[in-house]
């Protein structure tokens, strides 16, 4: 199956902002969020986009 424009995962430091229906990674601070996003980007072959300062999503293009 080929996925296009699909949110693979969300990474956030703000638990109240979590989206539903996707894998979410809670992080303590921005630094941890960036590390996890960088790893997930490489693993999932998607791009880490910053929606806000406290919410990143990994999107397959």
């Amino acid at each position, binding site marked *: 199956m080929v996925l296009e424009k699909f949110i693979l995962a969300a990474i956030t430091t703000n638990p109240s902002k979590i989206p539903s229906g996707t894998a979410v990674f809670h992080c303590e601070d921005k630094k941890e969020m960036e590390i996890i*996003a*960088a790893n997930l*980007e490489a693993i999932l072959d998607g791009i880490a986009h910053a929606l806000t300062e406290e919410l990143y999503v990994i999107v397959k293009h």
Partner: protein
Amino acid sequence: MSEYTYPILFGLAAGTLTRIYMLRTDYRQYPTYLHGKIIHVALGFIAAGLGTVAIPSIMEEEFTAVTFLTLAASQFREVRNMERNTLTELDSYEMVPRGKTYIEGVAIAFESRNYLVIFTSLLSTLGYLVFNIWGGLAAAILAVFISKKLMSGGRLKEIVEVEFVEPRFDGAGLYVDNIYIMNIGLPERQEEVLRYGMGFILKPKNFNARSTIANLGQRQAILHDVSTALGVYRDSGTPALVPLAKRDLDDGRIGVFVLPQEKNINKAIKIIEAVPTLENAIRMPTERQTNGKGS
């Protein structure tokens, strides 16, 4: 040996040599491999044969023999299919794909060059038979000249002005001038993009050019050409490092973002200017008679 032997041999040679001349391996790096070249020289030889025997058959009043030229048409349409299929298959493994429009342009060129070979052979044999070998030679040179003229298309520099702009970030958004390219979240990725990235603004010279460079295939062709010529800072696991071209909706300018391995501004501008304007991307909205009937 009949009286036609030498003219036919002459036409064959002229046609085949034309095909070899047109089969230059240029910056597009295609076809580089020996077998690919052999296929095209062989097909060129067949095309030359078809073209060259047409004149003797007319002179012998064998008019039905000319109908085999129709065979040539279907034969060379196959060439176009073959090229299209091969390039499409290979395109998925390119770091920066050529794109379908570019591939179609290459495939059309391969087909049409065989017709140019037929034309060259036909004209050379005609020259030889009507005058003498010198007449044939003159006809061949003329035909090669016309073929050269017909096979070279337009270049981007005729329709756009290219200008270098340093890419920048506004938050997570990557911009070339005021054109939004993409969202890159990770700070380390942003650093890489700024270190290796180059931005160019393509300003259309007229309204027709605006529609032509808006074509997604044309934009992909620009990215592919720059990436083949200057290398690309990218690998299969790094989807964030992708060359992109986006459009300013207000005035039709195109912002081109590339990640070359060799960061040479002048060279890059020259390469962009030399990108062929794809036949399938050319639009001429000004040719439309807006004040004509029924509009």
